[in-house]
């Protein structure tokens, strides 16, 4: 083997453009829809949202068919389903071992995680907009007096914030456990476990707004609640505990982990 034109020992990378963030967003969006499981999850979120609107329409009294009631009903279910999206987006890289390829093509792992965060939040916003659109139709057809009372920026913001927090919490658990089952179970079970323990342990019950995300989020779920500074502080501490902390630890884990 000597009849070759050997190329120089150094690699000329001056002509190669860096992989842009927008491209990574495109890649992560593809991953959101390119398997049956992920596609069905999206379809399910849409179908369940629509079903909730229809069911609420059928079982509620005419005057309850307001926009805010419709969105409130979808919000509870979406808050269970939406976080599964980012959990799968993160954990499938590990369970399917595609992280091997992903991080080989993009060594900057933080950038990949950020792309997953942005895509998850965008998907969440799309789901929320769908809920708003369907709730709008329900309210318009429902015949309630003043069906759109309170349906303003304030409620949109609260609802959006609530769902975004759910998405980020899912992401944080996904990063922390790198395992879909563990992340989903913990996401769903922790609030239930907390309320059970809080029922028998009054000290915990008193501290709940500070340390339990579900309790802290209660004012966000109520269109008529007035949120004061105290409530925001509750949200802040609970967010630090249940979103920021696991996200930080999970991110640190992903950045340092040996990918096999």
């Amino acid at each position, binding site marked *: 083997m000597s009849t070759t034109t050997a190329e120089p*020992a150094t690699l000329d*990378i001056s002509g190669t453009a860096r992989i842009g963030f927008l491209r990574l967003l495109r890649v992560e969006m593809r991953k959101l829809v390119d398997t049956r499981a*992920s596609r069905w999850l999206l379809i399910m979120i849409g179908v369940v949202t629509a079903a909730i609107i229809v069911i609420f329409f059928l079982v509620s009294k005419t005057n309850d068919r307001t926009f805010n009631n419709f969105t409130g009903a979808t919000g509870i279910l979406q808050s269970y389903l939406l976080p599964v999206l980012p959990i799968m987006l993160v954990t499938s890289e590990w369970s*399917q071992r595609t992280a*091997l390829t992903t991080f*080989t*093509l*993009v*060594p900057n792992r933080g950038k990949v995680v950020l792309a997953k965060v942005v895509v998850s939040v965008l998907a969440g916003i799309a789901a929320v907009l769908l809920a708003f659109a369907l709730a709008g139709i329900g309210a318009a057809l429902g015949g309630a007096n003043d069906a759109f009372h309170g349906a303003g920026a304030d409620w949109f913001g609260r609802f959006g914030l609530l769902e975004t927090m759910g998405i980020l919490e899912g992401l944080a658990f996904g990063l922390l456990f790198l395992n879909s089952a563990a992340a989903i179970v913990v996401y769903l079970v922790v609030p239930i476990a907390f309320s059970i323990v809080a029922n028998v342990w009054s000290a915990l019950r008193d501290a709940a707004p500070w340390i339990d995300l579900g309790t802290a989020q209660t004012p966000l779920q109520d269109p008529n609640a007035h949120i004061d500074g105290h409530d925001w502080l509750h949200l802040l501490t609970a967010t630090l505990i249940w979103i920021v902390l696991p996200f930080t630890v999970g991110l640190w884990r992903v950045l340092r982990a040996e990918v096999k």
Partner: protein
Amino acid sequence: MITVDGVSKSYGGFRAVDDVSFTCLPGQVTGFLGPNGAGKSTTMRIMVGLTPPSSGRVTIGGHRYADLPNPGRHVGVLLDASAQHAGRTGREVLMIGAVTMGLPTSRVDEMLELVSLTRAESRRRVRNYSLGMRQRLGIAHALLGDPSILILDEPANGLDPAGIHWMRGLLREYAERGGTVCLSSHLLHEVERIADELILIGQGRIVAQGTKQDLLQTRGAYVKAVEQEVLRDALHREGISAQPSGEGLRSDAEAIQIGKVAAAHQITLIELRPAEGEGLEELFLQLTGDTQREGVPA
């Protein structure tokens, strides 16, 4: 060119990779050979930044892998053909790679054709692929960005004989065009036929490296004479030691020296040739003896 410089990796007290240094040159296929668990895959993961080394460094064409702006355009990597999302189609796996690297869709079709995955096959989900098909898909993925360097971990795994033949030709041609190929294998005969440069690793350490010719040829000669004892005495007097080996003698001296001694003493030689290159195989078997987990070709 890949330069691995004093790379070690420890897990707790266990040294999976122990002070490994070598280079893979352009225009050559470098075979990384060793039994399972010898540290080949760990070294390859360190090369592409998936595993942080405990010490040492790897440069790819003078750069740290992580500093490559779009690594897939320079380095084609296949570490594990099974590490693909089972629910994606083969084509989608390549599409994700192409979008990430900023390549046109046409490149995906070209690569599918190159590795002989049909249109229908490419639309099936990876879970329904045989290991051989996954391997082809993995090679297509590695070649997607038209890289000048290839890093392939056990690329022949799961390929049928025709597939192995095909891959050998592909990599041969790739190296002849000036590409750098680093591939690993635990099968001696597989690597022997494709690699120019061999690196033998066992228990995390490099035990031998060099060109195939260097490693395959042991020093010395094998000689068979009619007057066996006379030759042996004559060699002895010249200070050349020779031991009986089979029906002849084996000596550390070169064939030409033995020939001259034989001529001077008018000894009739029936056979005189460089000693058989069984050193590599012996070395390999010795290496694999302790850690071997599957059949070694004998």
